[in-house]
C-alpha cells in the first residue's frame, strides 16, 4: 500500500491537465500528474482546426464573446464566456512563446483563418494539426519544469469526505491503478485535485474520439457529489469519415470546402439551411442538414454527403490542410486532391460536464475540473469550432492556479445544490442509479478523518472492487459497452424524440443491471487492460443515464439538442442549466439559472440564424 503526497494532483494529461500543472507549478506548488496514457498520447493531439483568439486589429474579445454566446444558443454563462475571450489572446501568445509551431503569415506573425459561427477570422492554427502542436508544446514545458508524471496510472475514484451535503465535502486525493504493475496507489493532495480527463465520446459507436475517451473524470466527480451539467448537449461534428469516425477539420470548410448532396446540389444554400453562412454555419446546423439530406434520399452510400476541396488547388491544400490528405487517404481510401471526401456527422464533443465556476472549482472543496470534462459553461448548448482549445488553456491555467492556492475563491457562478432554482418532475420510465452500491461516497464515518485516512479508506474500498471484478467469473464488459453504444447511437443522436429517449433509458437500465455480472477474465496483474476497460464501462453507464435523462426532460430545441415534437427554442421555460446529482445513488434532476449578465452588457437571446 503506497501513498504519494503532493500539493496538487492533476488527473489526466491532455491540454487542460498540462496547462493546469504548469500553472500550479508556477504558483510554487509541488505538482504531480496522474494519467492513464502517457501525456503525448492524449486526445488533445487529434484536434485539428485551431484556437480562437482576438489578436488582431479589427477584432475584439467582445466580438468573440458575442459569437460564442450566440453559438451557445444563449446557454453559456456570461462570466465564463467573457473570461474565455479575454484570456485567450494572452494564453495563445503564451503557447507561441513556448515555441509552438503556428502557421505563419508573410510578415512572420501567426496565421488566423475563418471558422464556423465567427464574425472575424480569429482561429489561430498550426496546419490542420493544431492540437498535436499544442499538446507537445505543453508537454515540453512540463518536462522542462521537472513536473512528476505518473503515467499509465488509471485513476479509479476520488477520495472525498462523506458529509451529507456535497458542499460540505472535501476532496483529499484519488486512487490510481498502476497499469504496468497492477498495484493500487493512494494519492494525497494537500491543496487540490484537478480533473482534466476529457470527454465521454465512447458513449457512441461513431465518434471522432479516442478509445480512451470514457469520461472517467465526470463519472468519478458525479459519484463524489459534484453535479453533471447540461450533459444532453452533445456535439455531432458534420464532417467525419464514414468508416472510422476520423475527423475532417472544419478548416476544410473554413478554407472554402463545399458540401454537396448526391444530386450535386450545394444543399446548405440550395435547400435553405443557412442562406448566409452556408457550409460555415454552426456545427449543429450543418450536421442536421446532412442527416436531413440523407433521410430525404439525397445522400451517398454509408449515409454520407460529399465534401469537396479540389477547387482550392493542391498548393493551398498542401500548405494549410496537408494532414487532411493523409487522413482521407489512410482511413477512407480517398485522395481528396482527386475526388470529394464522403463525410457524415459523428459524435465529437460534450458541451456538458462537471459543474464548475469560472475558477474551475466544483462545489466540493479541493476539487477542480477543466477542459472537456468540465462545464463552466462557455459552450452552452453548442460549441463553436476553435473554442475547445482556448478553453483548455484558459480554464486549465485558472484551475491549476486556484488548486495551488488551496483557498476557495470568490466567483460569480454558483455551484452545488444550493444554486438550485427548480426541481424537475420528469417521468423516467425506469428506476435510475444505484444497483451495485460500489463506489458511493455515503456512510458518514469519515467526517472528521485526516486526509490520509480518507485516502486510505477509499483505497481499501477500491481494492475490494478490483478483487471482486478479478474473482468474478462473469460476462465480458465489451458486450455491455457495445449495447450501450448501440442504444445511444440509435436513440440519443442528432434527432431525438420521447419514445426513443425512453427506450434508451430502459436499455441503459438493462446495461446497469447486466454490469453486475461482469467479470475480468485476464488473471494477470501486469498491464491488465481488461480490468481498466471494465471499470471504464461502469463510468460510461453512469454518464449515459445522466445525458439521456436531461435530454428526455428538455422539451425544446436548443443548439445541439433537437426534439421532434418541440422544434423551437423555449426561453421562458428552458433558459436554464440542467443539473443531475448522483445523490448517494438516487440521481436527482434539477435546474439552475443561466447568467446572461456580462461585465458591461446583458446578452439578449436572439434568434440564432446563420
Amino acid at each position, binding site marked *: 500500500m503506497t501513498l504519494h503526497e503532493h500539493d496538487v494532483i492533476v488527473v489526466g494529461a491532455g491540454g487542460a491537465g498540462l496547462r493546469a500543472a504548469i500553472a500550479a507549478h508556477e504558483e510554487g506548488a509541488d505538482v504531480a500528474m496522474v494519467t492513464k496514457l502517457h501525456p503525448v498520447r492524449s486526445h488533445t493531439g487529434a484536434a485539428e482546426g485551431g484556437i480562437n483568439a482576438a489578436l488582431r486589429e479589427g477584432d475584439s474579445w467582445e466580438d468573440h464573446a458575442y459569437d460564442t454566446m450566440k453559438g451557445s444558443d444563449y446557454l453559456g454563462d456570461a462570466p465564463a464566456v467573457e473570461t474565455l475571450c479575454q484570456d485567450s489572446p494572452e494564453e495563445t501568445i503564451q503557447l507561441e512563446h513556448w515555441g509552438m509551431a503556428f502557421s505563419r503569415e508573410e510578415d512572420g506573425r501567426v496565421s488566423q483563418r475563418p471558422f464556423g459561427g465567427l464574425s472575424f477570422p480569429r482561429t489561430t492554427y498550426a496546419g490542420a494539426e493544431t492540437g498535436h502542436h499544442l499538446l507537445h508544446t505543453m508537454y515540453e514545458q512540463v518536462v*522542462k519544469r521537472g513536473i512528476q508524471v505518473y503515467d499509465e496510472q488509471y485513476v479509479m475514484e476520488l477520495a472525498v469526505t462523506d458529509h451529507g451535503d456535497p458542499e460540505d465535502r472535501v476532496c483529499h486525493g484519488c486512487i490510481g491503478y498502476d497499469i504496468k504493475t497492477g498495484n493500487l496507489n493512494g494519492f494525497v493532495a494537500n491543496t487540490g485535485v484537478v480533473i482534466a480527463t476529457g470527454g465521454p465520446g465512447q458513449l457512441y459507436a461513431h465518434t471522432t474520439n479516442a478509445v480512451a475517451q470514457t469520461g472517467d473524470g465526470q463519472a468519478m466527480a458525479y459519484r463524489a457529489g459534484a453535479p453533471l451539467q447540461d450533459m444532453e448537449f452533445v456535439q455531432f461534428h458534420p464532417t467525419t469519415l464514414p468508416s472510422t469516425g476520423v475527423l475532417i477539420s472544419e478548416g476544410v470548410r473554413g478554407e472554402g470546402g463545399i458540401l454537396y448532396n448526391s444530386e450535386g446540389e450545394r444543399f446548405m444554400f440550395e435547400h435553405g439551411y443557412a442562406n448566409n453562412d452556408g457550409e460555415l454555419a454552426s456545427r449543429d446546423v450543418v450536421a442536421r442538414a446532412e442527416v436531413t439530406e440523407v433521410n430525404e434520399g439525397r445522400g451517398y452510400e454509408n449515409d454520407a454527403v460529399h465534401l469537396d476541396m479540389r477547387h482550392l488547388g493542391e498548393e493551398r491544400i498542401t500548405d494549410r490542410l496537408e494532414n487532411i490528405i493523409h487522413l482521407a487517404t489512410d482511413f477512407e481510401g480517398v485522395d481528396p486532391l482527386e475526388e470529394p471526401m464522403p463525410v457524415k456527422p459523428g459524435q465529437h464533443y460534450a458541451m456538458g460536464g462537471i459543474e464548475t465556476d469560472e475558477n474551475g472549482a466544483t462545489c466540493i472543496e479541493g476539487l477542480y475540473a477543466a477542459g472537456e470534462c468540465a462545464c463552466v459553461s462557455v459552450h452552452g448548448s453548442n460549441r463553436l469550432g476553435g473554442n475547445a482549445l482556448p478553453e483548455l488553456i484558459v480554464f486549465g491555467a485558472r484551475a491549476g492556479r486556484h488548486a495551488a492556492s488551496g483557498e476557495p475563491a470568490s466567483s460569480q457562478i454558483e455551484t452545488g445544490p444550493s444554486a438550485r432554482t427548480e426541481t424537475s418532475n420528469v417521468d423516467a420510465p425506469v428506476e435510475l442509479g444505484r444497483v451495485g452500491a460500489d463506489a458511493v461516497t455515503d456512510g458518514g464515518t469519515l467526517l472528521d478523518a485526516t486526509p490520509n485516512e480518507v485516502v486510505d479508506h477509499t483505497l481499501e474500498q477500491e481494492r475490494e472492487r478490483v478483487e471482486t471484478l478479478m474473482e468474478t467469473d462473469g460476462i465480458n464488459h*465489451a458486450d455491455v459497452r457495445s449495447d450501450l453504444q448501440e442504444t445511444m447511437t440509435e436513440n440519443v443522436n442528432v434527432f431525438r424524440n420521447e419514445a426513443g429517449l425512453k427506450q434508451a433509458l430502459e436499455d441503459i437500465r438493462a446495461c446497469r443491471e447486466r454490469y453486475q455480472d461482469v467479470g475480468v*477474465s*485476464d*488473471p494477470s496483474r*501486469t498491464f491488465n487492460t481488461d480490468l481498466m476497460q471494465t471499470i471504464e464501462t461502469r463510468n460510461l453507464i453512469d454518464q449515459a443515464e445522466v445525458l439521456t435523462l436531461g435530454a428526455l426532460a428538455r422539451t425544446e430545441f436548443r443548439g445541439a439538442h433537437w426534439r421532434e415534437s418541440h422544434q423551437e427554442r423555449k426561453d421562458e421555460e428552458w433558459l436554464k442549466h440542467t443539473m443531475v446529482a448522483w445523490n448517494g445513488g438516487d440521481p436527482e434532476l434539477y435546474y439552475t439559472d443561466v447568467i446572461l449578465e456580462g461585465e458591461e452588457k446583458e446578452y439578449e437571446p436572439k434568434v440564432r440564424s446563420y
Partner: protein
Amino acid sequence: MSTHVSESESEADAATDQQDRPAAQQRRVEKKRERHEQRERASDSSETEGQTILLKVFRYDPEVEDKREPRFDDFHVPFKKGMTVLDALIYSRDHYDSSLTFRHSCRQAICGSDALFINGSQRLGCQTQIDDLDQPVRVEPLPHQEVVKDLVVDMEDFYEGMDAVEPYFQEENLPSDLEEQRQDRANREKIKMSTRCIWCGACMSSCNIAAGDNYLGPAAINKAYRFVMDEREGEAIEQQRLETIEEEQGVWRCQTQFSCTNVCPKDIPLTEHIQELKREAVKNNLKFW
C-alpha cells in the same frame, strides 16, 4: 532570431524547400501506387471481402503460467472493407480473448500508441489496412524493446532518449505578453516535418545501432533538429544543442541506413535531418577553430 546562417544560405534553404515540396508529393504518389499494386495483388490471391482473415499474434505474460513461454495465437477475424490491423486486434480481444493486450487510443495515427511489428516491419496498427498485407498477418511487439506483455513494450528507454536532448523551447528574450515572436514562413516550413513526430518509437525499433549501442536514436535527434533549426531560439542555446548531439551517443553513431526513415508513419525524413545536423556540427566546429 538566430544568425547562424548567412543571407545566401537562407535563400538556399528556401530554394530547397521549394524542391522539397514536390519531393514530399512524390513520396505520396509513390506510396499510393505501391498500395494500389498491393491491393491488386491481394484481391487476385484471395477474395477478402466476406472472408475471414488469419491473425497470428505474439503472446507473452511473465505472470501467467501458460504465457511465460512466448507463443503465437491464431485469431480468425471476419473481414470488412477498410479494416485495419488495429480493428482486427480489437475484434479479437472483444470477441475471443479479453486478455489480449496492446496499447491504442486515437485510431488515427496521431497518438503514437500502437506501433507494432507487422509482417516484419514497424508500422502503426491503426494506419495499416489488412488489404495491404499478405496473409496470414503476423503481429509482434516492436523489436529491440523489452516486452512487458503481449504486444506492449517498455518505452522508458525511448522517453529517456527524448529527455536527453532538452526537448523544450528555450528563449529568454521574448516580446511582450500579447506579441508573438516573428518566424519566417520558410523557417516554419523547414521545421514542419520534424514537428510531426508522434513518439511512436518505430524508428528506434528499426535502428540497428540503437539496438546494440547507447545511441540517442532518430526520434530524439529529430527533436533536437526541430529546435536547432528553429530561428526563434538564440545562438547560445543552439551552440549547446549542437554540443549535446555531437556527444558520444549522438549523431555520429548514425550509419545512414535509412531504416528509420523507411518506417516513419509520419514520413519524417529522419536520416536527412541527422545528416543535416552532422553538417551543422562540422560547420559550427570550424567556426570556433
